[in-house]
């Protein structure tokens, strides 16, 4: 017979898990340092300058990708403009051999990670595969079914620790997707197995059209970790200094064997959910205007100038770099991808089944019979 002891019922230690009552902020909206937070040492100015560079390039990439949808070069693009601090800090906080588990909205993070932008946009341009090699880049395919990748991150992180490696996994997730069961299962699994995962919730206020208040009644999404025994924090997602500081601590926490960490970044999606969305139906211009005043790039630039590490020439050099990045992307996206229909049958199984070989043969024969099938179809259309 077991009895429940006093200590079994105690919730001592729970406060350690609780997020700050207000989001951590190290830069105010004008880009002035707000003083220090002992738990989150501010990154060096050199790191912040590098962060600035990646954010400027990231935004230029994002604007370019949005333009490419208008030109019909991309089937769809979910913009992350306004969320630069979240996306860039996450990939700057990890090592090259750490893994990231992105969603469709993390294209900018992947570019900041150094993945070729054309590869990042492969899927969105209408190709059938994720574009990059996940193993070589330590980056899972951008995930569309909401929250499902968070469980993969937990499993991978645990698998790495079983094999004696100190790899950390960062799982990105939006505010809406925190309602999905998989997210809760992932946080719980990671906690139970002390898997080194950082869950980064980018609370950009909307899940397509649905505002946060209709998604959850919790005071903050950061509280979602506490019930699972996971240390959690909320941070101003438009404050690049705080974002990098908090993400670094979260990664360090995970890497040093303390289990998962959950970060809620309060940010805002400046553009539509995707080009297919009409945000004027569900949010008003004043709201967008107010968030424009908290722009993470303006804030960081103001800080770097005041700290004397960035001047006009430096800013101009970064802008020029971003422009040439965009120009190169435009040129390379100017052609249709070269797709081989026969390859579709090759990666269903390691070795195709008899049935797949038969089907591939059928397509090959069809292609041979009508080598100019596409041209013919277009003519019919006219």
């Amino acid at each position, binding site marked *: 017979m077991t009895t429940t002891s006093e200590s079994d019922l105690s919730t001592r230690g729970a406060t350690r898990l609780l997020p700050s009552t207000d989001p951590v902020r190290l830069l105010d909206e004008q880009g002035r340092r707000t003083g220090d937070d002992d738990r989150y040492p501010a990154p060096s100015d050199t790191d912040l300058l590098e962060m600035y560079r990646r954010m400027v390039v990231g935004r230029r990439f994002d604007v370019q990708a949005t333009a490419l949808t208008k030109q019909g070069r991309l089937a769809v693009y979910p913009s992350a403009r306004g969320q630069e601090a979240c996306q860039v800090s996450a990939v700057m906080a990890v090592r090259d051999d750490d893994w990231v588990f992105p969603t469709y909205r993390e294209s900018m993070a992947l570019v900041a990670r150094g993945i070729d932008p054309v590869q990042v946009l492969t899927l969105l341009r209408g190709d059938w595969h994720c574009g990059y*090699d996940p193993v070589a880049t330590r980056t899972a395919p951008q995930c569309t079914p909401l929250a499902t990748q968070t469980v*993969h991150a937990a499993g991978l992180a645990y698998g790495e620790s079983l094999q004696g490696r100190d790899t950390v996994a960062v799982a990105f997730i939006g505010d809406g997707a925190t309602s999905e069961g998989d997210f809760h299962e992932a946080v719980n699994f990671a906690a139970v197995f002390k898997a080194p995962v950082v869950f980064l919730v980018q609370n950009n206020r909307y899940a397509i059209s649905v505002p946060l208040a209709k998604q959850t009644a919790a005071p903050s999404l950061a509280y979602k970790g506490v019930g699972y025994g996971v240390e959690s924090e909320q941070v101003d997602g438009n404050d690049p200094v705080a974002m990098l500081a908090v993400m670094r601590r979260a990664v360090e926490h995970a890497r040093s064997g303390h289990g998962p960490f959950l970060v809620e970044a309060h940010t805002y999606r400046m553009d539509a959910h995707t080009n297919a969305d009409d945000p004027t139906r569900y949010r008003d211009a004043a709201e967008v205007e107010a968030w424009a005043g908290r722009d993470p790039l303006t804030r960081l630039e103001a800080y770097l100038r005041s700290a004397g590490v960035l001047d006009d020439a430096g800013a101009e050099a970064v802008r020029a770099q971003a422009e040439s990045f965009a120009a190169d992307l435009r040129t390379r996206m100017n052609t249709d991808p070269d797709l081989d229909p026969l390859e579709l049958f090759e990666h269903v199984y390691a070795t195709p089944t008899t049935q797949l070989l038969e089907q591939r043969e059928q397509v090959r024969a069809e292609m041979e019979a009508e080598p100019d099938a596409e041209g013919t179809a277009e003519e019919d259309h006219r």
Partner: protein
Amino acid sequence: MSTTFAKALNTALRDAMSEDERVLVLGEDVGRLGGVFRVTDGLMDQFGEKRCFDTPLAEAGIVGFAVGLAMSGMRPVVEMQFDAFAYPAFEQITSHVAKLRNRTRGAVGMPIVVRVPFAGGIGGVEHHSDSSEAYYAHTPGLKVVTPATVEDAYSLLREAIADPDPVVFMEPKRLYWSSADVELPAAAPPFGQAVVRRRGNDVTLVAYGPTVPVAIEAAEAAREEGWDVEVVDLRTVVPFDDETVLASVRRTGRCVVLQEAQGFAGVGAEIAARVQERAFHSLHAPVLRVSGFDIPYPAPKLEHVHLPDVDRVLDAVARLQWDDEPDTRWTRGLDGHGLTGAGLGGVA
């Protein structure tokens, strides 16, 4: 030495774990308890809690976690406690386990085995006897395997664990306690190869998993009525062995497909279609299906009504005495005989 089906599975896991450190077993109650069917019995003791462990109660979590484990280089074997409790994991299975190889253009394989105790005949209460193989077989990227003999329980599970692709390994619950004189490790033909369990010249009876013993029994009984029935055990539904099935049907000229699952849109429908597409001129009669009814799996006291038995198979075999006045005979013959009418289209 007599070995049970469950013991063969247990030995397969044990041998695979001994040979390859990357093999992990996870699921609900697989550790201390050894699984509700004891298939993982003793594995935690032998290999430790890092190799065989209990997870929180969350099926999507279990399978999604296995996806991450596989990405880190492990070879997870996952136990779903019962067929109908695998449904919460269906999304992970179809969207990720089945597709990651494809989505990554071959860079990330998913060497995961999802073990599913399935089908009925053990008097289970609701949600404990579903035949869910068609859901998985309908998903490109998955292999679907269902052993019916003790040798196959061992050899197919070993092969499933060694396979570079994900395998949904469907264990017929009612066979767990069946046994045979088998020395393990047992060797058997590989995935994608059906096996003729009983030779015959008049009718090909195609079965898999839980219905294989029924098919063999029916074939024996049919001999008394003058029918020489050949029984083909698919062993793997995916990959499907067209060759063995078609060679048999071309020889016998008649085909009955037997499955325990509900008939509509099931695996039997696929087999019947393939046979008539490819062996039409060899057929003396339409391909018939004998299956469970299109109802949720019934309560224990009524499962005998649902489960296709020897009599129902014999009725189907008798109906294959095709003559030149098919339509009337056909329609008449269907009444009350538990044959699946679903595939008959306008005829019935």
